[in-house]
């Protein structure tokens, strides 16, 4: 099973929610905090569940999400 860490650039995020809607593990959520542009940005609330599927990065219209894949721990 792949595992990963989604890295969301909070300043690039416009809070569109497309990543949230498409995350198969439902680990993305909008915060109550606003970034410098006034958008409620999205964060990952449980990285341990990330399966590095890439859906969030694919959907993001602002390329605000990069994904690190965890190497298999041997």
């Amino acid at each position: 099973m792949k595992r990963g860490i989604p890295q969301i650039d909070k300043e690039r995020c416009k809070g569109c929610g497309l990543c949230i809607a498409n995350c198969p593990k439902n680990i993305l959520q909008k915060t109550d905090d606003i970034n410098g542009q006034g958008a409620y940005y999205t964060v990952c609330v449980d990285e341990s569940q990330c399966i590095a599927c890439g859906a969030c990065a694919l959907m993001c219209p602002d390329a605000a999400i990069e994904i690190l894949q965890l190497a298999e721990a041997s």
Partner: protein
Amino acid sequence: MSTNTIPMYERPEGLADVRTHYCAGCGHGIIHKLLAEALDELEIREDTILIAPVGCSVLAYKYIDVDGLEAAHGRAPAVATGLKRALPDKMVISYQGDGDLLAIGAGETVHAANRGENITVIFVNNAIYGMTGGQMAPTTMAGQKTLTSPAGRNSADVGFPIRACELLDTLEAPAYIERVSVHNPGAVRKTKKAITKALRYQKEGRGYSFVEVLSMCPTNWGVDPVKGAEWVKDAMVPWYPLKKFRDRPADGDGGQEKQAS
């Protein structure tokens, strides 16, 4: 705890490090990202000129690190023709929206395709005129409410939405025509493949490529981005089928290098 990580996805280098003016959830952002990825992967960014339309993406060249050229509304395929004939070894991309491609530019669209110009046309279809505030487009769905069809598009009066891929598919010359969408990750993946293929075909001199991308316009549709993506799937895709209309290079028929003049 092992913290060995490898980058699985990184922001494409070809995307300029600026905040776009696009609304949250706008399809342009996704498509620009895919285009930048494709330019990087094919290593053609330094040979590319992006022709921007008049529309929300009028500043497209600000967001992708390539030479940029403006065109009058609808004339991008003609501008692309002139540029490609002048610089046949460079990559020329015409990036257009509904009004640009199918209304004011319908003539230029058809004729550049008909001549089989060795260019790549990316058509962003969001069934509305975004930049000017949400007027009816040639691609607006029957019954869809817009600023200039406040009671909903009345097809008996103003006709039905135009299907660009099908229209161009009647022409002999085009090499590659496909309709894709960006409403969910699977669709986005297909869009990435189509754009990459279209650019590769241009690089190989295969002739005219056309990629239509069904896209969200949450602001002018009056819905949030997630609902917008659903509407693309539920309302647009049934009328605008996602399919590959032709792919001559893949089918091994045609794709002769475009002769100059």
